[in-house]
Every structure is written in structure tokens, then in C-alpha cells.
């Protein structure tokens, strides 16, 4: 039997070979005839590809982790992201498509007939993408650090190199079937351990039903009841209750929703499908493919938590001897993502609420949430190949999203800013070079944030969404649904929105993290959810500025009118 590390190398290597193989096949040129004959990529495949773009390392690695630790509170991510996708697919993509603009900054620039608006939008896009990539880099780092048995920092460096080669030199982004393969690897890697564990713990094949079922250990207890019991015992909040205030939950969910809708790299996916009808079908498929993973997440989270507490604290709840600790604890300790400090010198590990550094707390083990999905198969003692598979899945999730985001950054910098705004006379060669360089810089900067994260992967990503919510979303919505909105309003709105949100987040997360408690929050809304307030600010500022400034030109008003009235779309259906 091979050890986990060897198997990981083999399986991750095989998944890369698959992506590269598909890329070569697609480049061979034989596909062109195939496309013409088959009328392009089927909506089913396109749905998978979009899902791969959509599901980042945050979804794959961190979401279950956050639910596992935060219980009910973690569910906001689940709701926010799913809702955001629906919002994007139904309310934004079809209109942007009719407008005939390929990127959000282009839409904003043309709709608000202003170069300044376009540049502001580009800046917002770059800023958001940076935040988002930072989250991905951390995810990749976690995977590599565990399986190469190095510390998290080295893991991020390795991830950095691999992402760079994959996204910048490999040029594999944009090939739909590579994305399809990535989705398959990802979903397989997510479901296999979940099904195994569900079978072991509850006897149910589907983790979704196992989640609500009774434990198979003969106690007849429901999984969630057991978790609630354990949480109460160890001083955590009730798993199914949550500690966040209603308004905060609402704010975070809403921020995630509208922020998702403004994410630049996903919108593009809707435009690459030639037929309008196919766009809808593939959007529906995407939702199905996302749902497969998202509905599994809560189950994975609760199984993992039960298992984890059971193994660390022992069946009797008095702690397991450190000398006899399972190998996964030792393995993860090496990465620095699990820390054990024997505070009462009994040679046993004990996990409970409170910080490990707090002498009043009984907690002796500190566990990084981001390891939950990755460590889950190990905790459950699943075969080594399943553990390796999860690593491959995590990398797939991070790669597809990072590649998309890096493209947005590099095109924004080299084409939108450099070629179209600052230096229109650069050659193709220089433009491509600038693109590669900016991708490289983006990777390095985001790797820095990956090593020194301002939060967990999911919350870092949540910030990105918050920023998007406060800047793009209102501008897009007003651009489509209000024909009177003018450039002054939109620019002022975007600038104040993103500034307000970024300032709030930076204040609570970087400048005074000790003040980051509900008592100090504005309206009781946490930094994760402040994007929604930023959005409101954006709307209000825009409306006020609109009142004070000149009217929108007639032709722009007509253009907006034509997007919304049915005549515009009739041409699309004519054939």
C-alpha cells in the first residue's frame, strides 16, 4: 500500500495530465470542424465549466470548514453565494448581453458615456480580483502544505508557482473542456469522501439525507442533536442556532448575493454561449452543478465536526493521549494549522471553546477551519487514495477560479488601462508582455495576502464580494433599470461605496481587530456584511448627485430604453 504522499503526487499529477491533454487536443485544430458540425459547446458542458469557474477554493475548502465551526452562522455563505448566482443569471447577464458589452467596465464606461467611469470600474475590478485571488492562494497553500508536509508559507509559494505556470504560461484558460474536467475532478473529490463518511456514520448513501438522519452507532441520536449536545458541553454556541444577529446574517447574505453578481470573471462565461436560449439552459445546469456541492457542504461540515471532537476528546470526552494521537493530528501540526499546547500537563489533548492562549480556557488544541474538508477523510480513516483525491479537487477548484481572475486583472491592466487609456501605441508583443507581468505581480501580491491572511479563506473572499456589492452592482443595476442615471452619479456612487466598505473592513480587520465585536459595529453589521450598507450608500450618493448634476444625454436614454423593451430581444429570437 502506497503512502498518502505518493498517492497525492500520482493523483494530482494525473489530474494535471488530464487538463494538459485536453488543452493539447483542443489546440490541435481538429475541434474546429467538430464545433462547426456540432454547433458549439453543449449547454450541459458549458454549465459544468461555469460551475468550475464559480466554485473556488473558498467553496471547496473553506465553506464546509466555516459551517463546521460556526454552525448555523456559516450557512450565510451558502445562501449568499447561491442567491448571488441566481441574481446574476436572471437579472444581470441577459441585459448586459443585449447591451453588447463584454466586460463590466466596458458596460459602465459606455452606459455612463465616460472614460472616468470606465477607469473607476476597472480599478474596482482589479481591486476585487486581488482580494479574491488572495483567498484562493491561501486555499492552494493549505493543500500543498499538507500534502508536501511543509509549512503553510512554503505551501503558498509552491501554489504560486503552479498557478503561474498554469494560468499564465499554459494558456489553458478559455478552453471549456479543461474547465469541464476540472469540475468533474472537483465534484468527485468532494462527494466521494462525503458519501463514505455518510455511509459509515449514518448508513445513508446520500450525505444530504444522512445529514438529517440518526447516527449508525446504535445510539439512535440525530447527527445535529449530537452536535448541539457536544457544542453545549464544550462551551460553544448551539450548532443549529447561531450567534450572529438577524440583521448581520441578513446583511452578510445580501452582500454576498449582490457581490457575486458583480464578479467580473463569471459574467464573461454567460457571453461565450452563442445562443440566448442556450445561455438560459446552461445557467440552469450550472445551478444544478453548484447545488450538488453546496448541499453536500453542511453534511460534510457536521460529520467532520463530530468526528473531530470524538477523536480529539475521546469517546468519553476526557481527551485522547497526545502520544496516541491519530496521524492526521501530527500531520497537520507540521503545517502549523493545528497547534497543541498541553496546558494542564496531563499528556492528553482537549478541545473546547475559547482561545488556546487564554489560560482560563480548557482548550488545548487550536484548529484552522480551512483544514476541515481536507482533513475530513483522514479523520474518518478513509483509504489513502480518497485523501489524495481531495487534494486534487482542492487544487482544481483553486486553479479554475484563479486563472479566470488573473485574466481579468491582466486584461484590465494591459488592455483596458495601458493600451486603451495610457499608451495606445504599444505593440501586440508589449501588450501581451504587460499582461503576463501584471499576472505575475498579481500572483505575488496575492500570495503575500495568502500567507498573512486578514481572515479565513471564505471571509477574505467575502470581502471581495462586499467590495463588488458596494461598487459594481449599484452601477450596473442603475445603468440597466434607470435611464436617467448620469455619469456623475454613478462615479460618485462607486467611489463612495467602495471607499466606505474598504475603510470599514480595513478598520476592523487590520487597524483595530480588538474592536471587532458586535457592540462596535455599525447597525450591528459585521465587516463581512458591510458591503450591503456600502451598496445603500452608493445608491443614495448616486441619487443625490444625480439631482445636482446635468441630465443624461438623449441618445444614452434611448439606448437604455431599447435594452429593456422587447424589440431589442426580438432580433435574437428571429431565427
Amino acid at each position, binding site marked *: 500500500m502506497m503512502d498518502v504522499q505518493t498517492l497525492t503526487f500520482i493523483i494530482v499529477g494525473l489530474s494535471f495530465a488530464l487538463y494538459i491533454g485536453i488543452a493539447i487536443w483542443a*489546440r*490541435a*485544430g481538429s*475541434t*474546429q470542424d467538430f*464545433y*462547426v458540425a456540432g*454547433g*458549439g459547446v453543449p449547454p450541459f458542458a458549458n454549465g459544468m465549466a461555469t460551475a468550475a469557474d464559480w466554485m473556488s477554493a473558498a467553496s471547496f475548502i473553506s465553506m464546509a470548514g466555516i459551517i463546521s465551526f460556526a454552525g448555523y452562522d456559516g450557512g450565510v455563505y451558502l445562501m449568499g453565494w447561491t442567491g448571488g448566482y441566481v441574481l446574476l443569471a436572471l437579472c444581470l447577464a441577459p441585459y448586459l*448581453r443585449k447591451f*453588447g*458589452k*463584454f*466586460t463590466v467596465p*466596458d458596460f459602465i464606461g459606455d452606459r455612463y458615456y465616460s472614460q472616468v467611469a470606465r477607469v473607476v470600474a476597472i480599478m474596482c475590478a482589479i481591486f476585487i480580483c486581488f482580494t479574491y485571488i488572495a483567498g484562493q492562494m491561501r486555499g492552494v497553500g493549505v493543500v500543498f502544505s499538507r500534502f508536501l508536509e511543509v509549512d503553510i508559507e512554503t505551501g503558498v509559494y509552491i501554489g504560486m508557482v503552479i498557478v503561474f505556470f498554469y*494560468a*499564465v*504560461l499554459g*494558456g*489553458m*484558460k*478559455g*478552453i471549456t473542456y479543461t474547465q469541464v474536467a476540472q469540475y468533474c475532478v472537483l465534484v468527485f473529490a468532494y462527494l466521494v469522501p462525503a458519501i463514505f463518511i455518510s455511509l459509515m456514520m449514518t448508513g445513508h448513501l446520500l450525505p444530504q439525507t444522512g445529514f438529517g438522519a440518526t447516527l449508525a452507532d446504535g445510539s439512535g441520536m440525530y447527527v445535529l442533536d449530537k452536535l448541539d449536545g457536544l457544542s453545549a458541553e464544550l462551551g460553544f454556541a448551539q450548532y443549529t442556532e447561531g450567534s450572529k444577529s438577524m440583521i448581520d446574517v441578513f446583511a452578510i447574505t445580501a452582500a454576498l448575493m449582490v457581490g457575486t453578481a458583480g464578479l467580473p470573471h463569471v459574467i*464573461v462565461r454567460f*457571453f*461565450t454561449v*452563442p*445562443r*440566448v436560449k442556450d445561455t438560459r439552459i446552461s445557467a440552469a445546469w450550472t445551478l444544478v452543478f453548484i447545488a450538488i456541492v453546496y448541499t453536500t457542504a453542511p453534511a460534510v461540515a457536521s460529520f467532520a465536526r463530530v468526528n473531530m471532537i470524538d477523536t480529539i476528546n475521546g469517546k468519553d470526552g476526557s481527551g485522547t493521549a497526545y502520544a496516541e494521537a491519530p496521524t492526521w493530528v501530527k500531520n497537520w501540526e507540521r503545517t502549523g494549522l493545528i497547534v497543541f499546547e498541553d496546558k494542564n500537563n496531563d499528556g492528553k489533548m482537549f478541545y473546547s471553546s475559547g482561545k488556546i492562549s487564554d489560560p482560563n480556557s480548557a482548550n488545548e488544541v487550536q484548529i484552522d477551519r480551512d483544514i476541515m474538508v481536507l482533513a475530513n477523510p483522514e479523520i474518518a480513516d478513509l483509504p489513502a487514495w480518497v485523501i489524495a483525491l481531495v487534494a486534487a479537487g482542492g487544487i482544481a477548484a483553486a486553479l479554475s477560479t484563479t486563472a479566470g481572475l488573473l*485574466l*481579468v486583472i*491582466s*486584461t484590465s491592466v*494591459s*488592455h483596458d488601462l495601458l*493600451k486603451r487609456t495610457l499608451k*495606445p*501605441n*504599444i*505593440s*501586440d*508583443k*508589449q*501588450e*501581451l508582455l504587460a*499582461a*503576463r507581468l501584471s*499576472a505575475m505581480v498579481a500572483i505575488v501580491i496575492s500570495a503575500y495576502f495568502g500567507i498573512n491572511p486578514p481572515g479565513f479563506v471564505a471571509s477574505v473572499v467575502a470581502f471581495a464580494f462586499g467590495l463588488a456589492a458596494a461598487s459594481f452592482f449599484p452601477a450596473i443595476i442603475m445603468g440597466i433599470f434607470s435611464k436617467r442615471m448620469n455619469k456623475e452619479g454613478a462615479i460618485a456612487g462607486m467611489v463612495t461605496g467602495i471607499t466606505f466598505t474598504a475603510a470599514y473592513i480595513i478598520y476592523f480587520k487590520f487597524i483595530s481587530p480588538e474592536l471587532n465585536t458586535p457592540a462596535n459595529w455599525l447597525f450591528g453589521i459585521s465587516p463581512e456584511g458591510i458591503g450591503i450598507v456600502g451598496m445603500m450608500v452608493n445608491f443614495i450618493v448616486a441619487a443625490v448627485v444625480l439631482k445636482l448634476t446635468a441630465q443624461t444625454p438623449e441618445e444614452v436614454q434611448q439606448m437604455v430604453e431599447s435594452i429593456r423593451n422587447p424589440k431589442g430581444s426580438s*432580433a*435574437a429570437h*428571429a*431565427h
Partner: protein
Amino acid sequence: MIPEIAEVKRFVSKQMPFSQLPEAASHFFSTHIEVIYLTEQNQHQWLRSGNLYLYLVRSGSYDLLTAHGEVITRLAEGDYFGYPSLLTGEAIKNQLQVNVAGLVYLLKEEDFEFLRREYKVFEQHFVKAHANRLLSSHYKQSRDSWSEKKISDVMTKGAVMLAPDASIYDAAKTMSQHSVSSIIISEQQKLLGVVTDRDLRNRVLAVGISPQQSIASIMTDSPKYIFEHNRVFSALHLMLKHNIHHLPVLNERHEPLGMLTSTDLLRQQKSDPVQLIGKIYKAQSLTQLKLCATEIPTLLKSFANNIEDISLIGKLLSGLSDALTARLIALYQLEHGEAPCAFSWICFGSQAREEQTLHSDQDNGLLLPDDVNDEQRRYFAGLGQFVCEQLAHCGIRTCPGNIMASNADCRGSLKQWLARFENWIAQPTPKAMLNCKIYFDIRFIEGSSVLYNEFATQLSELTKNELFFAAMATDISTNSVPLGLFQQFKLETDQQQHKYLDLKRRGVVIINDLVRLYALKAQIYKANTLERLDALLGATLLNKADIYDLKDCWRYLTQLRLKTQLEHEQLPENCINPQHLTSLERHQLKEAFYLIKQAQQACAFKFARGSL
């Protein structure tokens, strides 16, 4: 260190490729050359095998001739020669003819090798120059053709000249006395300018200038000229290149001898395209028209051997097709009465791009006004049927994709055509993209230009769609150049196991596609690829250097394609086997493909946010 001579260095560093090289390169060159005074007497001494040199003309004027005495090119200040032998090691075959003696710089072989090793740009410059030389000389290899005659043999002797202070009225009088269409303005036997009867019309009558004014005020000053001992071919080339019909002929002392007109040249040429087009327009019956059409292949063959700029052949054939079409429409109207309403006959694809070959098929259509009724439609159905059928009889194959005015789909009203285009733009499926590649190369041929312009304006409004551009860019990038990961050729194999490279599909077509996309984005209403590229110089979409690169690539591939087509006939059309190329040509071909690949990448990047 050898001291450099400031004047030499200054001259050298302004010349290509030194203007792009570090200062050290021009220093090396200017301290290692030898200077000679090249005259008619000592010309045989130079350009001989044994000791090879790179020659750079400092002053004077010379003609480079083939072994048979045909002019390859005119050399003047800043021109190089002698490099082909330095590059290939082959014996020198060309010879020199001195028009005006002057100074020439010589660089020894070992010093040339040194610069070649040291500076890639230096090597590339000469490799490229050599390629152009090879290709242009290929089309001149036919011997004893009329174009090899000397100017002095074909020109009308006796220059009609006037002093610059003569009045416009005097000029007109002198011209009509001598019954000539142009006059040379000279002072003390030196050529100052030229005035043609067209100038009298455009610059005097049309503007209302007084005929008492001096002729110097309206003459074309420092006009193009030619020497009496030059070849007719050079004159033809000059005329075609600059679109002029009158060339003053000078002797060695730069004294005007007479005027060479395009009519003089036409008289020399039995099957001339201009004459043939004229004949087509005068044809009174179908039989006459078809007779004209049979002359096309012979004309093309004789012409192809004499022309330097390959894009002219496509233009020539398209011009003939246009003429045939226009005449057929006129003949139909003679028989069936005037058209009942306005219409525009339009063409697509290669005819629109003016890239037609003898194998190209018809791509055309009829544009009708929106208020066309059924009866009128019947008339145009007949017209479409007739013209397409007769064109096929004239040797232009029918379109396998049925893009012809005989097809009801291609006989739409303004609205119908726009709806077709709008559908492709809004739903850019691969099939729609395929259509766009044909239909977006569009040119007006005959009928109402008002109707066509209305259509063009509305169409350009429709094309302003970034999603459509993105789809086009993505589509273009799926067609890859035949280069592998390590810059090796990727050959295709046909059923007979011949290995080949498809220069058209994997080279020229990609450039055409790229340029079409840029032209649409820049709202350029031209169909010809080179003209589109020229027009793009005015937009900021593409850098100037990139545009020139694309033009060079396009010309190189087109010429190579025609050249090899003549030599290796068992391969599929437009294909070559790189093994039949010299190592230099292979090198250039790779360079060309690499440039296309880069342009493709950049295009996908700019329009579709595609892969890096």
C-alpha cells in the same frame, strides 16, 4: 581603436537596420568598410564571386540586373546589394548597371558575418530583404517579353517642353499644337515639372484659375521620371505603383528626352488587362462577352510573370469579374427592360477582398429596397438567375454554399439583409461565424450606391457589439498556425501520404480574419485586406509596427503560395512541402507563422479576454 569618420557614421546610423541597432554596430560598420567610386567603367570589377561584399549605396544611382539583363531593382542612396550571396553562399549571378556614378560602401564578408552573429536584427533585415528579392524576381523570369524592352525603344521621341514662366494658356496651346496629353516644364535642360491635360482640367478649369498665370503654379513639381536605358518593366511598375500615366524620360545627363505615356505601354502589350476590361464593357452580346472571358486565363499568365506586387493579380481578376458582372446586368436590362426599382448588386468573400484567383467561386447577392413588391421581386429573381448562370459560363464557378443572387436568400430587401446579419451578430454560433467570414467582406458592384450606403451605415451600427467581436476573436484563435511547441512545422497529410503545409488556410486566412475583425471594430468600410491594414494605421487598435508585420506576412505567404504552386503540382491547392524550400525560406516561413500566432493571441486577448 580605429577613429570613426563622423559623416560616415551619421549616414550609416540613419540606415536600416542600423537605426534599430545599438550605436556600437554603426561604429563597427563605419570603421570597417571600404569606399569605392562606382562608375560605368569600373562596374564590372565589383559584384564578382571570389571576394564577397555587402554593398551600401552612398550616392549615385544604379540598376541591379539579372544575368539576362533584366532589371531587378533600382538602387539609390541607402540601398544594399550583394547580400544574397553573402547569405546563401551561392555564386553571384546579378550584374550592375550604372545610371549615375557615385560612392558605394563595401563591407567584407568576415565583417558581415560578425555583425550577423552579433545582432539578430541585422541578420533579420537581410534575410527579409533577400526574401523580397527572391519573390519579386520570380515573377520576372520570363524572358524576351515586351516588358524587357528598353524605354528608348518604345517611347515617342521629341520632348514637348516649356519654360516655367510660360502661362497656362501657352501650355494648352502648345499641347494642342503637338496634339499631346502632357508637357514637360524645364529650365536649362533640367526637368522641373509635368503638366497633363488632366491637370488643366482639375487644377485650372475646375478651380477657376486664370489662364494667364504661370504654368509653374499648377505643375506637378519634382515628378517621377525614368532613364532612356531603363526597361519598360520599370516604367510599368512605377506607373502602377504611383497611379500615374505620364513619365518624363531623361538621358544620363538628366536632360528630358520625351514623355512615356501609359498608352505607349499599352501599345506594347497585346493582352492588356485595361484593354480587356474596356472590351468587356463594350461587349454587345453574350457571345462577345464570353469570348472576352476566355482571354482571362492567358492574360493572367502573361501578367503574373511581369508583376512585382502580387496583390495586383487578385485585384486584376476581381476587376475583370466586376466588369463581367456589370456588363451582364446591363445586357439583362437591355433584354428585359430597365430595373423596376433601385437595387444594388453586391459581392462577398474573395471577390470583395479583391483576392480572387482562377479557382475562386462566385459569392454575390442583390440588395433591394424595403418597399419591393412581388412583381419586382420576380424581375430580380430573373436577373440573379441570369447573371449567376452566365458568370458560370464565363468561367467563374458557382458557389457550393449557394451564396449567389440566384438564391432567394441572397436577394433580400434592406431589412431582410440586416436581419440576417443581426441574427449572426446576436447569436454567434460557429456556423454564424463561418457566414460572417464570407459576408462581412462586402463590396458594392453595380446599381444604386445610395441604397448600398444606407445598408452599410445601418450594418455598421449593428456591428458595434463587443460580444460579437469576442466570439469572432475566439473563433479565429481556434484556427492554429502550423507551428509546434518548439517552433517546428506541424505538417498535415493527405490521402496520398503527401506531407504539406496549408499556407492559405493556416496563414493567409488567419490574417484575413484578424484584419476583418480589427476593421469591423474600427468601422472601416473596405474589403481588401491590405487596404484595411492601411486604413488601420489611422486607428489606435493596432500598433504601426504590427500592421507592417501583418502586411509583410500576408504578402510573403501569398507570394510563396503562388510560387510553389507553379512548381509542385501534386499537392493540394495552396499547399507546400517545406522540404522543398531552402533553409532560408523555411526560416522566414516560421517567422511569418510566429508573427501570425502572436497577432492571434493578442487579438483573442484584446477582444475575448482569452488565454494569455
